[in-house]
């Protein structure tokens, strides 16, 4: 199966319609930059997939968009000046091995002739490993100049592994492995659910077993039921016949609860009463009375002392008030003394009164005035200090008096308070036992003893009645326990089955995963000799004449290419050498497609950055592929190289070839300038005698 026709209208660089009838052998498409060579290659990819993958990059969300976030569809159709004549579309013809041509036309809205399913069924061999979409067909059929190293030598190892895996067509046992993994999850959930039910049932078994043990223990204490009934009746003073045994038991239990409450209340009451009576006895002693008398005497003395201090304070306050009234006069005197001392006698005249006095008389009067001022000031200070001390003493005595008065009040009312507390205790005891009792401690102790005796008797009688009722309950619990045990055994078996099935499913999933890895290793190993042959044919590097592959990783697989002693050619080779090696890798992938019926290789300008010597090697490799029936479509820029390819790619009667020249006309887009059929070479030139 091969490509037979390529017709484009308004696609990429073609404004009008460009049609190429593709020969069975090869087509060498030659032209300058922009002449439409890549447009034709784009058309092949677009017809197959509806995409142009080289213009896309993957965003963080996994969407494939162009760099500015625009859709590639914005640039698939003619964007130059003028309108396209006719409907923009791409038509791809595929010739099957019976010579029937199948046409597929893709326009703006998708395939308008042929269907995706038909295209896929036509091109791909139907096996479980068939690639999921036609992009795998395109990716392994068409190799472009700028993608040769990116898709081979420079490809990350994990992506390279995926690329090779999709090319060889073995996708592992993904559906089967998924089924096994899903079964593991189902069985795990089922086992967990059964485990939960089993544990709940086991808890139930434990609870019922304990209950049974308790009941059996109780029945061992069972005595004379009739005497127990009598005891209950007597203790509770029941006169009327009860409706049944159960009612008497309930009343007995209630009676036990009442008696317990009463004995507790009596114990509390006796303790409280004993404490109150002890305190009352203390109050009534002589020591207590003497202590109270002493306090009262101290209070009287302090009251008298307070009265004296209060009187003293009032007197001192009056004295101090008198001094304060004369304070301005004393202050003026002090200023006179100060002025007199500072000015002195002025020309025999007193500077204060203007009278004529002698110097001695002036000094004598000033000195006398000074003494008076000093005496008055000392007296004022003494009175102030005495007044402050008196006030302080008064406050202290008042405080002491109040404290003693409080103690006297407390001691005097203690007896009344204790009497009130005793009355309260008696009320509480009477409320608890329900009838007025002897209020003495001894009387209450007698009552407590009676209640305790009644409680013990009633408890024993109730226990006997309960034990007699346990026989029936034992039978019920035994029956229930047996049923729960059977359920437990069934769940245990079910759990074992689910766990065993889960283990087997897990083992199955592990086996599938392991075998997938083994088979993939073998598939790639099968690819290795072809890669080696193509590498040797293309001879990228004079020193490193052999190439090896290495696979690693379990969960995520990696495929690395190595030369020499584990060296990575990506960092060892020049760009031209990397390209030659990349071509070897991609051609090996292309030739390994057992799942693909399409025997067509499309190369878009594969010899850029490759020297003439290695370009010749490539021509020889393509010739070698042609001899295996491969259709080769190759675009080149150099006319000499185009001629070389035409000579080497072997045009025959059944697999002819053509040389196509492309050109670009400003405003009109690309067009086919000429198509020349490559004639078959003469078969026997040499004279081989």
């Amino acid at each position, binding site marked *: 199966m091969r490509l037979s026709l390529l017709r484009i209208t308004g696609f990429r660089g073609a404004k009008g319609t460009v049609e190429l009838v593709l020969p069975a052998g090869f087509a060498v498409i030659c032209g300058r930059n922009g002449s439409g060579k890549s447009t034709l290659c784009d058309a092949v990819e677009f017809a197959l997939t509806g995409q142009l993958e080289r213009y896309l990059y993957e965003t963080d969300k996994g969407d494939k968009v162009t760099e500015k976030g625009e859709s590639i569809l914005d640039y698939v159709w003619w964007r130059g000046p003028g309108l396209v004549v006719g409907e923009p579309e791409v038509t791809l013809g595929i010739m099957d091995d019976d010579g029937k041509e199948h046409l597929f036309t893709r326009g703006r809205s998708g395939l308008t002739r042929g269907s995706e399913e038909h295209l896929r069924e036509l091109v791909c061999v139907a096996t479980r*490993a068939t690639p999921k979409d036609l992009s795998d067909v395109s990716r392994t059929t068409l190799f472009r100049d700028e993608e040769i190293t990116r898709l081979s030598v420079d490809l990350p190892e994990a992506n390279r592994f995926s690329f090779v895996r999709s090319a060889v067509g073995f996708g592992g046992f993904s559906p089967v492995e998924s089924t096994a993994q899903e079964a593991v999850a189902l069985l795990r959930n089922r086992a967990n659910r059964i485990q939960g039910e089993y544990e709940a049932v086991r808890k139930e078994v434990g609870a019922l077993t304990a209950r049974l043990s308790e009941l059996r223990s109780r029945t061992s204490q069972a005595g004379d039921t009739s005497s127990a009934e009598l005891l209950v009746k007597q203790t509770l003073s029941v006169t009327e016949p009860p409706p049944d045994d159960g009612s008497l038991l309930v009343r007995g239990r209630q009676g036990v609860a009442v008696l317990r409450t009463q004995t507790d209340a009596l114990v509390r009451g006796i303790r409280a009463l004993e404490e109150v009576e002890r305190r009352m006895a203390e109050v009534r002693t002589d020591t207590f009375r003497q202590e109270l008398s002493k306090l009262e005497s101290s209070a009287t003395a302090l009251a008298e002392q307070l009265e004296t201090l209060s009187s003293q304070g009032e007197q001192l306050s009056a004295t101090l008030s008198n001094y304060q009234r004369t304070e301005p006069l004393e202050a003026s005197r002090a200023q006179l003394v100060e002025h007199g001392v500072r000015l002195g006698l002025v020309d025999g005249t007193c500077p204060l009164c203007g009278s004529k006095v002698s110097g001695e008389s002036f000094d004598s009067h000033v000195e006398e005035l000074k003494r008076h001022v000093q005496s008055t000031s000392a007296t004022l200070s003494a009175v102030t200090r005495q007044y402050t001390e008196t006030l302080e003493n008064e406050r202290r005595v008042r405080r002491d008096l109040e404290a003693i008065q409080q103690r006297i009040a407390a001691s005097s009312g203690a007896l009344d308070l204790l009497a009130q507390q005793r009355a309260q205790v008696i009320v509480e005891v009477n409320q608890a036992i329900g009838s007025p009792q002897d209020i003495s401690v001894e009387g209450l102790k007698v009552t407590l003893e009676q209640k305790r005796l009644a409680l013990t008797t009633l408890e024993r009688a109730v226990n006997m009645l309960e034990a007699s009722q346990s026989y029936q309950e034992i039978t019920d619990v035994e029956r229930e326990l047996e049923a729960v045990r059977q359920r437990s055994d069934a769940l245990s078996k079910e759990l074992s089955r689910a766990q*065993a099935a889960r283990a087997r499913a897990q083992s199955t999933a592990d086996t599938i995963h392991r075998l997938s890895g083994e088979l993939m290793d073998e598939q790639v190993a099968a690819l290795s000799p072809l890669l080696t042959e193509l590498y040797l044919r293309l001879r990228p590097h004079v020193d490193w004449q052999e190439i090896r592959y290495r696979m690693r990783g379990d969960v995520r697989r990696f495929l690395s290419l190595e030369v020499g002693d584990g060296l990575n050619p990506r960092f060892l080779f020049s760009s031209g050498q990397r390209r030659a090696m990349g071509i070897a890798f991609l051609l090996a992938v292309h030739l390994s497609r057992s799942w693909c019926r399409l025997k067509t290789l499309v190369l878009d300008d594969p010899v850029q950055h490759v020297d003439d010597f290695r370009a010749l090697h490539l021509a020889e490799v393509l010739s070698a*592929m042609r001899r295996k029936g491969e259709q080769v479509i190759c675009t080149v820029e150099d006319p000499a190289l185009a001629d070389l390819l035409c000579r080497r790619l072997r045009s025959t009667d059944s697999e002819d070839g053509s040389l196509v020249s492309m050109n670009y006309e400003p405003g009109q887009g690309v067009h086919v300038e000429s198509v020349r059929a490559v004639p078959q070479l003469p078969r026997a030139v040499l004279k081989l*005698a």
Partner: protein
Amino acid sequence: MNLLDVSREVLSACGYRTHAPSPTDNSLQFEDDALLGFVALHPDVPSILGRWREQQDVFLKSQARALRDAPVKSWNVYSVFLTSAVCPPELWERFVTVEEDFSGTRKLTRHSLVTRDDVVRALYPLIPIQTVVTLSESDARERLRAQLQLPPGALAELLGPGSAKGFANALEVEQ
């Protein structure tokens, strides 16, 4: 092993007509629909380096008339120089450079040829792709079936159109 005999056998198997001009000449001529030329066997690398141009010219001269009559095919002439001897390191560069001389014919020079595979590799530029990749999926299915060791019902559920639930049930039932 006679390298010339092996070369002749390999080329013939690939559709070439071959001819040995002289039993003592240690060379043979070949041609198919697109390529033609000669293979010359040498005792060592110095011999190749000393005689390749002379042998090429002799061949071209002897076939000059025929080549003139087929001008396009005359571009596809190969001169192949083989030896089983190892190339001395000091001659390596000169030996390699012979191939990069595009005058007259396309030259192939190979040394250290010992086995048939060595000869096949030496003739790679003249012959079709030799390696055939055969990948069989049915083998994989059989190997999987053999390794799983599952009861028949569970195996059928897993490998057939059954569901995970059906597979899980079969695993529980068929214990």
